[in-house]
Every structure is written in C-alpha cells, then in structure tokens.
C-alpha cells in the first residue's frame, strides 16, 4: 500500500529568474540565473547533486531536444539528467521526477529545472505549430485562448450565470493578479489595471479579451530537493516539505464521450481528491494557506476554484467578487501575480508556483509577504486544453503540519 510522498522530501533551495521579454538572453542564460539563486539558497556544492530533471514544453523554439542542453549549461558532472515534457505542466513534472528520486532513496539530492524561451517567434502569444501529423488532419484550428474560452459559455449554460456577470468576475481575477504582480520585482507584468480597461480590451477569443490572457514570457525556475534528514544535516531549519504530488491525465472522456459538459476540469477534480488525501487535508477551504493555480486565462482560474473544492460548484463567482482569493482575502490565489502577471514561460511555470509558496513559507516574499503565517501552499499546474489535458497538483508545507 502506497504511503504517499508526505514529508519524505524537503525543498532546500529554490531560484527563479526574472520573467518577461528577455530579448537578449538565451534559454541557457535564464537557466543559470535561476540556478545560481537556488544553489546559493541550498548552500551546497554542485557536485552534491545526484540527478537532475529538465522540464521544457516547446523545445523546438529554443534548446532543442534531450537533457543535454541543461547538462551543458550547468556543466553537470555526467550525472543522470532527464528531459520531461507534459504541455504546460512540464516544470511540475521535472519536480516530480526529482522528488520521487529522493523519496525512493535512489538519490540523496536531486534538482528540477524548468525553462522556456518563447519570445523568439516574431509575434505575441504562444507559437502556432503542428500538433502531430494525425491530429493535424482533424483537430479544430484551435489556439490556447480559443480552447479555454469555451469554458465560459459552457459554465454559463450549466450554472445559469449571465455572460456579463461571468465576465465581471473574470475581470476581478485579472485585476487582482495585476495588483499582486505590481508588488513582485520578478514579474513580467507589473502594471495595475482597472475593470474598465479589462472590459474594453480587444477580443482575443470570445469572450476572452486581452486582459483575460496571461503573459507569454521567457524564464526559468529551479528546485533542489533532498531528504529531511540530509536537510537537517546541512543545517536547515523550519523545513518546507512536499505534502502531495499528484498528476491526472485525460483519457479521452472529455474529448470523445458525452458525459463531460465542458464547464470544468475532470483531471483537476481527480488530482485534487488524491492530493488532499495524500497531504492529509480534509477541508481545503479551511486548511490551505495560499495557492497558485494555472491561470492561463481568467476563466480557467474561475472554474478551478470549484474543481479544487474550495468554492462550491456554481459559487466561484461569489467567492471571487467577495475578495476571498485576493491577497488580503481568506486564501490568496496568485499572490505573486500568477501566470497572468508573473508570466508564463511554459516549462518554468510549475516550478515558479512552488518557488512562491516556498518563499512565503520562509517569510521571504518581500512586499507581497502574507502576514498570516502560511502552513500549506498548493500549486495547480495545467497543461493542454480543457477537453484534453494534464493536471499536476503539488502541496508543500511546514514539516510536520
């Protein structure tokens, strides 16, 4: 019987590059920036790292295939390095590899690195590209915003929420993330916005306007993990440990079977149940201190509040408008600005979320530090489209909590 990951692995070092339009940096430059911060935070020599996992989503836009680009960028001493890709959840997958390796006893210290260099396409938004030779024959000509936008009409129809009420709640989400991002020196977008600006922005994919969409950024994030015992032997105190790591992948039900209504994420619900169980959380609305979700689009964040069982089904709009998820609310969501404003360098995003939770746990989040001491922090990292995706959930917290 599996006992789960809870408290078996501690995070001892994290780093994150500034996210944004890093016109003058290659992926390797972003990696080194995050790595230096993480290795200094861990206080170890590079030679102590036994293995590394390298997460990146659209490698053809920057480093190319395999784990070799990471091994070369950091001149790793011929240790095992594995490249992982799972859509926008690639960074979380890198962390999962490293955490599992430590938990298994195969490694003492492992590292997860995520990177993405997206701003080399010549245009805004994610790169337009082939989706596989067979998929290209029949998949709709869909972009990310167009796929996620469809949550809105389906949600409206199911919960009888008017399109304008929904759009206003979506606007609140984006305004909140811009407020939070303005307090984050590493964030891509640091400007505050108004509801009027959101509502009147150009349409990207109905009903998603420009401010309903997250930034497409360059960036990198790094985590170094080990066992709590080794962490203590390195002199670490107040350990932050991994409480749960769950992944759920669509099996075609949403895309091909009529039992899904298009208004929520099947995978998020499956992963959330398992993650709370693994972490020993029985009431997430009361027990979670703060969390980061995959707010690629405002509507994604909205429905995810319900899929994580924090808002009751059909009630997310009320919680959002009540400020429940604001930085000074009951459970802040995207206290660092989220994908929306911190930015979304695909392979780095999952690790960036953990980075913020880790900083908050250690009281190192600067101007945006939550005053109430955080116990449990969660990262929800999605990849793909609502109708076929992967969902990663990672919960970290104070050791013993």
């Amino acid at each position, binding site marked *: 019987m599996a006992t789960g990951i809870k408290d078996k692995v501690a995070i001892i070092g994290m780093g994150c590059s500034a996210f944004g339009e890093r016109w003058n940096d290659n992926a390797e430059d972003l990696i080194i920036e995050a790595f230096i911060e993480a290795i200094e935070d861990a206080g170890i020599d590079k030679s102590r790292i036994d293995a590394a996992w390298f997460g990146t989503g659209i490698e053809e836009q920057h480093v190319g295939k395999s784990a070799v680009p990471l091994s070369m960028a950091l001149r790793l001493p011929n240790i095992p390095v594995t490249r992982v890709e799972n859509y926008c959840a690639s960074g979380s997958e890198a962390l999962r590899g490293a955490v599992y390796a430590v938990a298994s006893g195969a490694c003492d210290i492992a590292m997860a690195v995520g990177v993405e260099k997206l701003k080399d396409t010549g245009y805004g938004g994610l790169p337009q590209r082939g989706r596989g030779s067979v998929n290209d*024959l029949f998949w709709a*000509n869909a*972009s990310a*915003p167009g796929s996620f936008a469809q949550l809105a009409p389906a949600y409206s129809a199911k919960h009888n929420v008017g399109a304008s009420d929904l759009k206003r709640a979506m606007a609140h989400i984006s305004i909140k993330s811009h407020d939070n991002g303005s307090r984050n020196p590493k964030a891509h977008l640091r400007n505050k916005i108004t509801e009027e600006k959101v509502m009147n922005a150009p349409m990207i994919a109905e009903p998603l306007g420009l401010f309903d969409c997250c930034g497409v950024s360059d960036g990198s994030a790094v985590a170094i993990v080990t066992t709590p015992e080794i962490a203590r032997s390195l002199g670490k105190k107040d350990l932050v440990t991994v409480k749960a790591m769950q992944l759920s992948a669509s099996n075609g039900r949403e895309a091909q*079977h*009529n039992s899904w209504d298009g208004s929520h994420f099947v995978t998020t619900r499956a992963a959330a149940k398992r993650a709370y169980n693994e972490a020993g959380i029985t009431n997430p609305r009361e027990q979670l201190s703060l969390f980061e979700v995959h707010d690629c689009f405002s509507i994604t964040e909205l429905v995810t509040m319900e899929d994580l069982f924090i808002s009751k089904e059909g009630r997310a709009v009320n919680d959002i408008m009540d400020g429940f998820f604001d930085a000074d609310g009951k459970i802040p969501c995207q206290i660092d600005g989220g994908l929306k404003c911190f930015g979304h360098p695909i392979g780095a995003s999952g690790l960036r979320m953990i980075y913020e939770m880790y900083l908050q746990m250690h009281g190192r989040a600067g101007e945006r530090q939550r005053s109430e001491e955080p116990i449990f922090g969660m990262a929800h990292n999605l990849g793909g489209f609502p109708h076929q995706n992967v969902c990663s959930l990672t919960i970290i917290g104070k050791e013993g909590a």
Partner: protein
Amino acid sequence: MEVGILAYGGYIPKSRLQRSEIFKAHAWLNPGLKGLSKGERSMANWDEDSVTMALEAARDCLTAYSRENLSAVYMASTTFPFMDRQNAGIVADALNLKSNIQTLDFASSQRAGSAALSVALQVANGADQPILFTVSEKRQTKAASPLEFTTGDGAAALLVGKGEVIAKHLGTYSETVDFVDHYRGEGEAFDYMWEERWVRDEGYFKIVPDVINGLLSKTGISAADVTTFCFPVAARNVAATLAKKLGFNENSVADNLQANCGETGAAHSTVMLVHALENAKAGDKILVASFGQGCDAMLFEVTEAINALPKRNGISGSLSRRKVETNYNRFLSFHKLVNLELGIRAEVDKNTGLTTHNRNRKMTQRMLGGKCSDCGTPQFPKSNMCVNEECGAIHTQEDYPFAELTATMNSYTADRLTFSPDPPAYYGMIQFAEGGRLMSDFTDIDPDEELTVGMEMRMVFRIKDHDFKRGFRRYFWKATPKMSVKKGN
C-alpha cells in the same frame, strides 16, 4: 424501362457578393462595368472548392435515397482542385460509398456538365443501378473582368437511371464546333475572352438553333410544346432571342439566375435544370442546352413521380440560405488576388504525409468513427479501446458514420489569435445525440447570426488546410448551424 432523372440536388454557397461593391472598386479603371453592377453573385467560402460544392449538391440529391445502390459517380468541372487525382473519387469517398463503383471526371469545356450528363443518360440505359452525376464550378476570374461580375460559384447533381424517373429523357442532340470564343491554356489561371457581340452573333445565334432544331426533329416534339427552356448565358436577351427564333413560348425562358447567383460555369446548365425541376409539374417538357465549342441539347419530360420526391434544398433552398457580402476585399483575398499580410502564424507548414492521409482517410474523408460492439457507445475517432470508462473493451469498434448525423453545440469561441483565412476562426465542442463528439471547426458562420449552446449543427465537407507550397489541400468535416437565427430575434 424509361431512362431519366431520378432525383436532383443543388448547392450555392451562402455568401452573395454585391456586384455594386465590385464595381465601386473598379469604376476608376473601367466605368463601363457599371452595366454589370446590379444584383449579387454567389461566392464560395475560402474552404470550398468544386469538390466540396459537388459533394453538397450530391448529398442534397441523395436525400432519402440509399447510397448502397449507385453504379457510378461522375463529376464535371473546369475548375477541378486536382489535375491528377480523381476528383469524382474524392466525392465518392466523402459520400461513404462502396468502392466497387465507377468514377469519372469530365473537363475542359463549358459543355463538360452537359457532356457528362448525356454520357450518364446513355450509360444508365445499360446499367443496373443509377449514376450520380455532379457538376461544380468555382472559377478564378481576373479582377475587373466582366466574368468577375457575371460568374458565380455553385454545383448541382442529378441521379440518372431507370425506373421511377421524375423526368424522362426524350433525347439528346450535340454538335461539335471548335469555335473559340474564350479559352484557358495550360498553366493559366484565367480565361482569355473575345468580343461579346461576335460570340453572340456567330456563336450562340448560329450554332445553338441548329442543335435545338436537330433535337426537336429527333424527338418529334414541337417548339410550342417546350414548357421550359434552360440556356445558361449571362448576357441579357440571348436566351429570349433564341427562344423567339426557335418558336418557343415567350414564358418558356428559364431564369438564368443572373440577379441572385451568377453563371456557375460548366455547372450552370444543370443548375438551371434543377431550378426548373423544383417548380415543374408532370407533363412539362424541359429543354436544356449548353454552349462551348459546340452545343449539347437535351429534352426531358416531367412525370408524376416528381410529386413523390422527398423535400430537399435544391437551388432555391440554397439561394435562400444567404449571407450578404459587401466586402470585395475578402473575395480578392480568398482568390489570392491580393497579397494580404496574414501574419507569421500563417507560415506554419501544412504538409500532409500521404501515408498518414491514406491511413486515416476513412476518418477524415468519410467521417467514420467507431461504435463499440460491446456497450454500443459511438465515438470519434475510432480507436482500439472504447472511450466509455464503464466499458474500455479492446478491438470492439465497428465503423460508424457521423457525417449525416445532426450534432448539438456544447461550447464555442470566435478566435482572433489562431491563423484563419477568414478570422475570427469559429470552433467548438459538438456532440451527437447517439454518442460521439468532436472539437470541431465551424464554417459559414455569419457574425450577425446567433451562436447558442444547444443549437443544432450539421456536418459539411470542407478544405481543412491549404498547402500552397505543394499544391495540396486536405479535406475534413466542419460543423455549421442547421438553421440560422439573426441576432436579436
């Protein structure tokens, strides 16, 4: 048994470009075009070509008719999308027909349609099963040419065979004269035309009467007995003058659809015939003639069986499915007559692996999904393992055709980010009542019309992607609203 027409079908694209808008753009260059600036012409969407329009006409023609019982599919056009790949074969595939049928393309003249029809009528005499004849045209015309105004895009189809014919074939008469009033040479995109007055006086008025008189004497029918005279010429009064010369009744001259459709090239004689059949009654005698390096003329007598023909769209139904297009620039762009900045996203290579295409052809062209023989769940695409989580049976999927099923729409978007030749790109999740669903491209969406969750959609066969680099295009099915509802109604 009598040979003739068993059923008809028609298709005219939804968009109608206003000729006044074409004229507005060209008045500076050629004010003389003003005479052509009235009315509207049909305009194929960017994802339509002669094959997709022929298919729509064929589906219409086969309304309530079993597709099992066809012996052949003929397609006629002067604008085939493929020079070497049988176009009728694509139509047959998309109709999900059995493979042991004959398929033939007829081309190279404005008479291609009437030639194919006369061949079909002859072959049907000795065939056990009917022949599906389709004719379709999407002409490339030079900007500011008279043809740009007078032509339209469209298709028609006839089921030709023996038995309960709705129109009996009384006879055909042809003459071949290599009278070159216009031509399109090898590798050329556009027609080269000679003076209209000469074509009228030396072409229509000299060649056609001989052919029609030949037909009348061959069939023993007197000119006064002809109820409807279908002669597809855009120029005003040509058909009426011919009718007068030939002794036809004044009201026998069929509408050439110049006001609301335009001349659909090689398809137009059949388009006009279908249009005539829609309003015909038993005993009517319809004479169809078509001109192009000679002339074909055919005579049909409508039978009582026409009253029992199941309802279909035909040409009239197609014409009433109408979206007014006032943007001439869009027409130019669809025909690649203007070099618009479509953005870097448009540069994505659309190469189709022919092995991939062939392996997945039933899925893409026939829209065959699977149905689990264990639990009965239909799904698209077909797969090795049943999608129903309660089942999950392996290798139980039997072919299940989706193309003719009605879907309902679950969610949708209008996407301005992704590349589309006609942004925004509309798409969404559609599902079929019996089971099965698909994130599907939508087409023929009018921004002035309502898109609502739960609305009914039908599938149409369209161009999925153009590969201009290699001259290939891949087809797939898209969803379009079954009924259009104007916003605010």
